[in-house]
């Protein structure tokens, strides 16, 4: 059996798990969590079978992309396939999803318990988690944009449900709503983009759209727009990607999404769903490359986001929020790589980031679960009480900061190289500042959380090392954080069965080999170390006086950063001053014109006609027969008139 031909099995397994949990989860022992964990494990194991058959098939030189599946809807002129693409970047994403989903599932069986007792709606959590995994795998494997859009909305729904999991809390409800509405803005753009491409090419198939764009056929068909058509369509797609991946100006939802349970943040809001935007652009990069200016937009948005989010992360005190801004910033790095056309490198950073960021979130979850506190200012000194959590957290932070030889170093280094090669030095320098910031905020977070004297005795008294079901995922992800970077080297790749290093597999048709450059590595390593030193200079022990001095030296600037550049306030002002007045006008029009005249009048007419029509039902057989005769007579008469 060739597994790659049956890749649909991967999303089907968690989908079935969802149906079972949805129907029976409440009644099953342990809320049926074993079903969700089992499904995730099955996906993880089966992934390697699919990967093996994919690699066999690459080795046999049969080309890079395999589309499998069947027609979902086929109405001649309108075909939607239930089709799946098995290719290299899909495999990278499936690996990320499968691994992190399994770890998060295992972790959640402990995290979603309070002193050993399941929290309310424990079964529902696992049901939605399974649905998320099914939708995410569908999104990754879909070979056409419509199916991908269905899954895209599906993961959005799961994200909404899980952010609002603790819906007794007002803030969780608000955060869920904000995430949904904000990403929805982007999703509308994505859908418009899909329709525009469909109109121009007559297909939803990604391969067809790429072929049409490369052949310059997208602008041929629509007569109205002319040359702007392709640009408009592509930018609409990017709108969706930016919304999902929380790029400026859509970044506001991600930090608030931290209201959800922490393992959810690790899975959805760090490793998988938020990178869907990166994945979408990566998949359609040939389209972006032939669209004038599109790559520069991607680059610009990515760079802005990487810098702004890096600065905002500095002034946050909630552990998870720091990590959230860091995620936004790292996603910006990935978009920069895409902007200079380095798909393989963007995907490589996606891969390494997924593991260390998931590990960081799960580590912060471990701290929160045990101490019941997530304000870093009240933590501190946890190093001695939670050694495993602390060491995995620190290692992952170092990886994120880009210190050799951990995985983040390799992937970030690649992005610098690609930027210098593909854009200009100014971009590389700005990116270097963003990298410096990431080392700085991570070191700050580590220092105030795990080192220094305990700030709250009640908290430190509660702090104990977490249970094995929490620690095993942490350790596993840390090991991956160590290893994944090395896979880029030829020698390691050879040993693992990827001759030429993994990068030559990530984006197969146009492989990008790993170009390690000593000078660049030295520079980026130094920048990261400099970030660490700066953090030490400002935050270690009594040094924190210096941080305070800086804040007091420029209180206004500090306030701007602490208030996240007033993005939320600006949006709120826009909603209050522009949206609501406009909505009132629309509401009036809707009530008076659309409803009263447009809907109610025809409805009244229909009802009136129906009222009179009922008099033909007399209940008398002769009347019934008479009507039949009249019908036949009319038809006969008409027959002679029309056809005689």
């Amino acid at each position, binding site marked *: 059996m060739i597994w790659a031909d049956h890749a649909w099995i991967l999303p089907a397994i968690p989908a079935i798990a969802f149906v079972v949990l949805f129907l029976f989860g409440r009644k099953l022992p342990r809320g049926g969590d074993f079903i969700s964990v089992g499904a995730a494990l099955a996906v993880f194991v089966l992934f390697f079978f699919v990967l093996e058959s994919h690699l066999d098939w690459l080795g046999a030189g049969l080309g890079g992309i395999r589309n499998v599946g069947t027609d*979902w809807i086929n*109405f001649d002129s309108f075909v939607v396939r239930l089709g799946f693409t098995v290719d290299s970047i899909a495999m990278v994403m499936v690996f990320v999803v499968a691994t992190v989903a399994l770890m998060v599932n295992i972790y959640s069986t402990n995290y979603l318990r309070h002193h050993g007792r399941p929290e309310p709606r424990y079964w529902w959590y696992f049901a939605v988690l399974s649905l998320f995994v099914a939708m995410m795998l569908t999104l990754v494997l879909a070979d056409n944009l419509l199916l991908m859009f269905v899954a895209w909305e599906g993961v959005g729904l799961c994200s909404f449900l899980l952010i609002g999991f603790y819906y007794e809390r007002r803030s969780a409800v608000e955060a869920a709503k904000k995430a949904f509405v904000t990403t929805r803005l982007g999703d509308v753009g994505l859908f418009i983009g899909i329709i525009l491409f469909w109109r121009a090419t007559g297909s939803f198939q990604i391969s067809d759209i790429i072929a049409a764009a490369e052949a310059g056929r997208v602008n041929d068909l629509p007569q109205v727009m002319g040359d702007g058509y392709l640009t408009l369509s592509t930018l609409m797609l990017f709108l969706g990607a930016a919304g999902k991946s929380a790029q400026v100006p859509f970044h506001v939802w991600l930090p608030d999404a931290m209201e959800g349970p922490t393992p959810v943040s690790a899975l959805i809001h760090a490793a998988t769903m938020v990178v869907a935007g990166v994945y979408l652009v990566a998949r359609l990069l040939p389209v972006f490359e032939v669209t004038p200016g599109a790559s520069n937009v991607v680059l610009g948005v990515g760079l802005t986001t990487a810098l702004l989010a890096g600065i905002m992360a500095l002034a946050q005190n909630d552990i998870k929020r720091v990590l959230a801004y860091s995620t936004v910033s790292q996603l910006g790095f990935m978009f920069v790589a895409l902007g200079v056309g380095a798909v393989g490198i963007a995907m490589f950073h996606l891969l390494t980031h997924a593991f260390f960021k998931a590990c960081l979130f799960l580590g912060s979850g471990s701290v929160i679960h045990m101490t019941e506190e997530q304000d870093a200012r009240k933590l501190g000194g946890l190093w001695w009480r939670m050694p495993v959590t602390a060491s995995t957290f620190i290692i992952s932070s170092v990886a994120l900061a880009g210190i050799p030889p951990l995985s983040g170093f390799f992937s970030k280094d690649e992005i610098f190289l690609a930027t210098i090669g593909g854009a200009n030095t100014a971009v590389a320098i700005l990116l270097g500042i963003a990298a410096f910031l990431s080392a700085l905020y991570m070191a700050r977070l580590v220092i105030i959380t795990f080192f220094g004297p305990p700030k709250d005795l009640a908290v430190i008294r509660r702090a104990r090392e977490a249970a094995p079901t929490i620690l095993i995922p942490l350790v596993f992800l840390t090991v991956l954080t160590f290893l994944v970077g090395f896979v880029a080297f030829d020698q390691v790749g050879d040993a693992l069965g990827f001759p030429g290093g993994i990068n030559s597999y990530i984006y197969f048709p146009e492989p990008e080999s790993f170009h390690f450059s000593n000078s660049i590595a030295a520079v980026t390593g130094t920048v990261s170390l400099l970030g660490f030193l700066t953090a030490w200079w400002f935050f270690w022990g009594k040094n924190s006086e210096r941080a305070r001095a800086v804040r007091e030296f420029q209180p206004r600037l500090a306030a701007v950063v602490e208030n996240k550049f007033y993005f939320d306030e600006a949006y709120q002002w826009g909603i209050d001053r522009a949206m609501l007045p406009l909505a009132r006008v629309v509401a009036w029009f809707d009530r008076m014109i659309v409803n009263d005249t447009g809907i109610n009048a025809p409805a009244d007419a229909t009802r009136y006609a129906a009222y009179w*029509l009922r008099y033909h039902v007399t209940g008398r*057989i002769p009347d019934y027969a008479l009507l039949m005769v009249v019908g036949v007579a009319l038809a006969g008469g008409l027959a002679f008139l*029309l056809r005689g």
Partner: protein
Amino acid sequence: MDLEYQLIIPEFVMAGLAVVIIAAALAFRNVDQKWFGYATAIGLAIIAVITAVAYWDTNDDFGGVLAVDHFTVLFRVFFLGIAFFTVMAAVQFAGERLKNHAEFYGLIVFATLGMMLLAASRELLTAYLSLELLSFSFYILVGFNKLNPFSNEGSLKYMLLGAFSSALMLYGISLIYGVTGSTTYSAIGPDVVEGTRSIAGQLASFAGGSGGVDPDGARPGLLIGLVLITAGLGFKVSAVPFHQWTPDAYQGAPLPITAFLSAGGKAAAFAFFLRLFSEAFLPAAAEWVWFVGILAAVTMIVGNLMALQQTNFKRLMAYSSISQVGYLLVGIVALDAANITQSQDAASALVLHLIGYVTTNIAVFAAIIAFYNRTGRDDIVDLRGLAERQPFLAFAIAAALFSLAGMPLFAGFATKFIIFQAAFNNGFLWLGAIGVTASFVSLYYYLMVIKQMYLYEPEGSDRARFHVSRPLAGALVVLVAGVLFIGLYPTPLFDVIHSSTAGLFEQAAAISAAAVGN
């Protein structure tokens, strides 16, 4: 003539099953009556499976009057499925509210036999006899609850008007026989073309030309014959203005029979309709297509408008089924003599909509039967608060009604989409527009029912939650799953249907090829 009796073994077995069930009731007087129901259901299921396996690759005919091709086998299995689900839904109802169970199930089997023969018929009198076997079984079944005056009234109206419509149809058949000299579809097809031509010649001779073809002219006979046959069929499928028996019979009949009548009766009549019009009458499409088009339009409009006024759920479903007939007739209208591929698409669309509609309708009725078993009520307001008393039933009814209204996710959307698309492709934009508007109106009365179930609290003395018997619940789960499956992924079913409708157009293809040759 060598008759290949093995082709119609399923029909023989069905007749045997009916007799055995009735005889068994005489032999085993002390057996719990429900076992007759389950025995019938198991018998039907076994016959269905064996028919599907054994006959799928057959393409033959029995003495020129019964075809056993993909189309027949598809409909055989379809009818057996309808009967199976009807019996499953009926067992508890019959046990509690009817007498003479064995005869009840036996008549259902006889009616199913009539349907199976009707779908296979390729000869007008055979088809007529099959139709009467079907109708006679239904006349009795509608009046089966003989102590109920509504049941008697419905049965009597159905029977008297049915006799009237049979007379219309027989007269039509005799006229067609007079024009073409034959009653087999294979002979009518080419002759219909001749009939059409002779009129052209006649007109030419009137105009002073030298057509020289049959001066008496067969055309008036052909036209009136087609109108009368269509009228007779219109009665059987309850198209407006031949529909008036429908609400009375639906309301009076015992609920499972209402389900069976709305599903099986309609499906069988459409199988006949489709085979007759595509095998025999397609070459003369120009002569009848406008008439069927008007019939479809009037049926969609009147059915939906009348449904708005109903307060009784069975009468609502009666008018709802009338409006569905309008949509199905659109499929007949989309048959096109000049374009066989398009005709086959239309026929497949019609069968797909038929299967979707029937599955949905049986689901509605199965749920209503479960509700009626508990409450003994069938007005729309009685459903008030059902979502609290029995969430599963409320969900099943809501899903099925959404499907009937043609909402996405459910069967009705996909099947209506395909059928209207067929009409558009054949240039009947106005008909498609009426269909879409009518569907829109229909959403109102379906939503009124859903509103009663979901937005109101239960009322009256009986507000407790209740259980649905397991066989009924099981059948309902399968039906609702079917509705969702057809709605989400119609392709596999459509492929099966498409391979079964291919045979219907072989003759028309040959005729049009010959016409091109000339």
